[in-house]
C-alpha cells in the first residue's frame, strides 16, 4: 500500500499550519513526522485521516485520489489515526467503546465483539478486560484499546499522534514492540508523530521533518542526531554585527537551582546575568527551559537554590514581588496567558495603569494608547479588539504595555508564528530596551534567532543546563549536538 500526500496546504485564520507539503508512506515501514510544537504535524495527520479537510492538495492511495469527508472515509480506505487527545468515551466500558461506531444492527452482537476484542488483545498481550470502565484505565491502556479498535477495522496505515506523552516506560516498550510487529509482520505503514528525538531514533526507519508548517527534509534513521536537530531548528545563519553594549552590573543571579519540570528534574542551574545582556535558552520542548524562565519570574518555585535580583534574595518571592523589582515575563501563549480576548487596545492599556482614582480617564487612555501604537509600530486602532490584530502586532503591543527601564525581560518564543518582517521589528524593540540596560532572557526554537541575538546561550538537555559562552564561534552541528544530547 502506498499513500501519498500531494501539495497539502491548510490555514487557520492567519496561521499557515501546513504549506505545500508532499510526503509518501509505504507499507512495511515506520515513519516519523518530526517537528517542534506548532510545526503543523497534527494538522497534516488530521487531514490525512479525514478529520480536517485541506485547503489545497490531495491524498492519493495506490494511485487513486481520495475525497475524505470524514474519518470513517479514511478508515474505509485503510487509514486510521490515534489522536493526540484520546477520542474515546470514559464512562463506557471497554466493550461499549469497542462497539461504538462499528457497523451492525439495532442490537449489538456483544459476544462476537467480545471475541474479536479478545483475539486482538491476546495477540499483543494487552490486558484489556472488556467489562472494565474506560475511566479507570491509564492513558497507555486507552491507547491500546484504540489501536485494537482500529486494527479490528482493518486499517493498513496507522497514525499515532504523540503517543508517548503521558505513558509509562513499560507501556512505551510494549507499544513500540507492537508497532514494530505491525510493520514487519503485517506490512502496515506506521506513522509516529513526535517532537521527541529519542522516540524517533528508537523506532523509526525514516523521519520527515516539518518546521513552521513546511516540509524541510527527510533523514533515514539511524543518523547523527545533530542532523535531525538541524532540520527541526533550521540552519544557523551568519551572525550579524551589532553594537556591542558593555555589560553592566549583574542584575540577576541564579545559583545552584534545582527545578522539577514535567518529565525530568533539572539539576544545579547557575546563571549570572548583567544588565544589557541577552541570554538565549535553547533545548527541545519540555527540557525544563520553560520552568526555568518561570522560576526567574516568580511563577514556578524551584526545589532548591537561590535567585537574587540586584543582590536581593528573591528565592521565595511571588510574581508580584518580581514585577515590583523590575522583572517582566511574556509567555508563549499570547492570547491565552498574555492578552485578554475581546478587550480593546485602550482597555488593555487602562488595565496596566495604576491610579488612585476609581474611574478611568478614557480620553487620556486613548491618547496614550494611540501614542504607543505609533511608537511601537502596531497596526491597529485604540478601539480595535486585540484578537483582530495579527500575531506580530499583538506581540508588539504586548511589548509596548511593559514599562520602560525594566531590569530583566523574560520572553518565551517571542517570535513564534510571526513572519520574518515582524520578527525583525520585535527584535528592534527588544534591542532598544537592551541599550537602555534591560537584561533579556528568551526561549526560542529557532537556532538562528538564538545564535544571532544571544550574548550567551544556555542549552537544556536531559536534566542539565550547559552554558555556551561565545555563540559567534558556535557551529550548527555543535549546537545541534548539545540540544540533541550527544556530547
Amino acid at each position, binding site marked *: 500500500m502506498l499513500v501519498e500526500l500531494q501539495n497539502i496546504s491548510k490555514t487557520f485564520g492567519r496561521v499557515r499550519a501546513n504549506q505545500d507539503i508532499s510526503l509518501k508512506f509505504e507499507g512495511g515501514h515506520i515513519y516519523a513526522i518530526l517537528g517542534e510544537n506548532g510545526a503543523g504535524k497534527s494538522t497534516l495527520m488530521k487531514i490525512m485521516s479525514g478529520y480536517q479537510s485541506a485547503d489545497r492538495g490531495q491524498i492519493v492511495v495506490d494511485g487513486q485520489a481520495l475525497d475524505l469527508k470524514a474519518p470513517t472515509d479514511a478508515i474505509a480506505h485503510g487509514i486510521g489515526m490515534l489522536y493526540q487527545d484520546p477520542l*474515546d*468515551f470514559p464512562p463506557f466500558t471497554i466493550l461499549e467503546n469497542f462497539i461504538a*461506531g462499528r457497523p451492525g444492527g439495532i*442490537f449489538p452482537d456483544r459476544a462476537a465483539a467480545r471475541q474479536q476484542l479478545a483475539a486482538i488483545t491476546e495477540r499483543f498481550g494487552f490486558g484489556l478486560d472488556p*467489562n472494565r470502565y474506560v475511566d479507570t484505565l491509564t492513558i497507555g491502556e486507552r491507547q491500546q484499546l484504540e489501536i485494537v479498535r482500529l486494527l479490528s477495522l482493518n486499517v493498513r496505515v496507522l497514525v499515532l499522534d504523540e503517543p508517548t506523552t503521558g505513558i509509562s516506560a513499560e507501556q512505551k516498550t510494549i507499544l513500540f514492540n507492537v508497532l514494530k510487529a505491525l510493520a514487519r509482520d503485517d506490512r502496515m505503514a506506521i506513522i509516529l508523530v513526535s517532537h521527541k528525538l529519542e522516540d524517533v531514533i528508537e523506532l523509526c526507519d525514516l523521519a520527515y521533518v516539518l518546521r513552521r508548517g513546511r516540509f524541510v527534509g527527510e533523514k533515514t534513521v539511524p543518523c547523527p542526531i545533530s542532523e535531525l536537530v538541524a532540520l527541526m531548528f533550521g540552519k544557523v545563519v551568519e551572525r550579524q554585527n551589532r553594537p556591542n553594549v558593555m555589560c553592566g552590573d549583574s542584575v540577576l543571579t541564579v545559583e545552584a537551582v534545582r527545578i522539577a519540570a514535567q518529565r525530568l528534574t533539572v539539576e544545579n542551574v547557575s546563571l549570572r546575568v548583567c544588565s544589557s545582556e541577552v541570554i538565549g535558552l535553547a533545548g527541545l520542548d519540555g527540557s525544563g527551559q520553560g520552568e526555568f524562565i518561570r522560576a526567574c519570574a516568580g511563577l514556578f518555585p524551584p526545589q532548591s537554590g537561590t535567585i537574587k535580583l540586584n543582590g536581593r534574595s528573591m528565592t521565595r518571592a511571588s510574581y508580584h514581588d518580581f514585577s515590583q523589582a523590575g522583572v517582566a515575563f511574556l509567555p508563549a501563549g499570547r492570547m491565552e496567558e498574555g492578552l485578554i480576548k475581546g478587550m480593546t487596545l485602550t482597555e488593555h492599556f487602562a488595565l496596566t495603569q495604576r491610579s488612585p482614582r476609581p474611574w478611568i480617564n478614557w480620553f487620556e487612555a486613548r491618547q496614550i494608547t494611540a501614542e504607543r501604537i505609533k511608537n511601537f509600530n502596531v497596526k491597529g486602532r485604540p478601539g480595535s479588539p486585540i484578537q483582530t490584530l495579527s500575531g506580530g502586532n499583538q506581540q508588539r503591543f504586548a511589548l509596548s504595555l511593559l514599562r520602560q527601564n525594566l531590569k530583566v525581560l523574560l520572553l518565551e518564543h517571542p517570535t513564534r508564528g510571526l513572519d520574518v518582517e515582524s520578527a525583525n521589528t520585535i527584535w528592534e524593540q527588544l534591542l532598544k530596551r537592551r541599550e537602555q540596560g534591560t537584561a533579556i532572557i528568551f526561549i526560542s526554537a529557532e537556532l538562528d534567532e538564538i545564535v544571532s541575538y544571544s550574548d550567551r546561550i544556555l542549552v537544556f538537555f536531559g536534566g542539565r543546563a550547559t552554558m555556551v559562552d561565545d555563540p559567534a564561534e558556535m557551529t550548527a552541528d555543535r549546537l545541534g549536538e548539545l540540544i540533541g544530547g550527544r556530547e
Partner: protein
Amino acid sequence: MFSGLESTLRGIIRSAAPIVIAGQGELITERAGVINLALDGTIMLSAMTAHVVARETGSLPQAILAAMLVGAAVVFVVVVSSIGLRLNQVAVGFVLTVLCADLAIFLGKPHFNRPGTEIPTMPIPLLEDIPFFGPVLFRHNLLIYFSLILTLLVWFYIYRTRPGLTLRSIGEQPEAAFVRGTPVNPLRYAYALLGGALVGLAGATYSLSVKLGWKEDLSGEGWIALAIVIFGLWVPSRVALGAYLIVGLRSIAIDLQDSDVIDLPAQIVNMLPWFLMILTLLFATSGALEKVVRFTPDRFKPAVRRFLRAAPPRALGTTFEKH
C-alpha cells in the same frame, strides 16, 4: 373501594406520571448533549393546548398529538438557536420557559376552569383483579400505563441497543462520535425533538388526566422534573425513583397536614419533600453506596455501578462543529 394504602400508592403513580414522562424526555434530550431549560413553560403550554384541543375537537388523540407538537416545537427553537445560531442554550431555554408560560396563561384565559376532558380508564382484564397490585398498577388510563413502562423503554434503549449507545456517545464526546462516523448534529436534533415531544405529552397528561382541565397552578412542575433529571444523574431508573419519591413525599406531607398530626404552616410542609430529597441525594452520592457494589455478584455489577456511579453527559450544553 380502595383501602388507604392502595389509594395512596395509586394516587402517587397517577400524579407522578407527568413528572416521569417529562423527566425521561428531558433525560433523552440531555443525553444527546442539549439542555432544554424550557420544561416548565412547555408543560403549561402543552397542557393548555391539550385541554383546548380536546374540548374543541372532542378527539383525545388529536389533543395528545397537538401537545406533543408543542413540546417538540419549543425544543426545536432551542436546538436551532444553539446548533444553528450558536446562542447559549441556557439563556434561550430560560427566555422560552417564561414566554411559554405567559403564552399559556394568555391563550388559555377563555378556557380557564372549564371542565376538562378525561382520558377513560382502561383496567387491564385479569391483572386488575390481583389483590393490592391490581388496583395500584392496573386500573389506569393509557397515559399512566405509558409512564409506567417508559422508564423501562428508555433504559432498554440507551443501554441495550446500538442507537442508544450512539445517543450516549454524542452527549459525552461528540468528537469521538464523529470520528466513528456518527452524524452528531442531525442526531442531536432528532433526540432533542423526541425529548421535547415527551415533555409535551407530560403536559397533556396533566390536563387530560392528573389535574383535569386548565389551571395556572401547573407552574413549578417542569422545574421539579428538571431537578429530578439532575438529582437522578441522567440515569433512567434514578430519574423514575426520584419522581415517585418526590411525589410520594408530597402526598404524605399533604396527608399529614390534613390529619393535623403536625401543626406547621403549609409552606413549611411543602418544603419537607425537598429537604428529604437533598438528604437522599447526599446519601446516594456518599461513598456508603460504593460498598454495595463490592458485594454484588459480577453479573449485576455493571447495572449496579451504573445506578450508583453516574456522571453528567460531558458535552452537555456545548455545540459541536467539524473543523
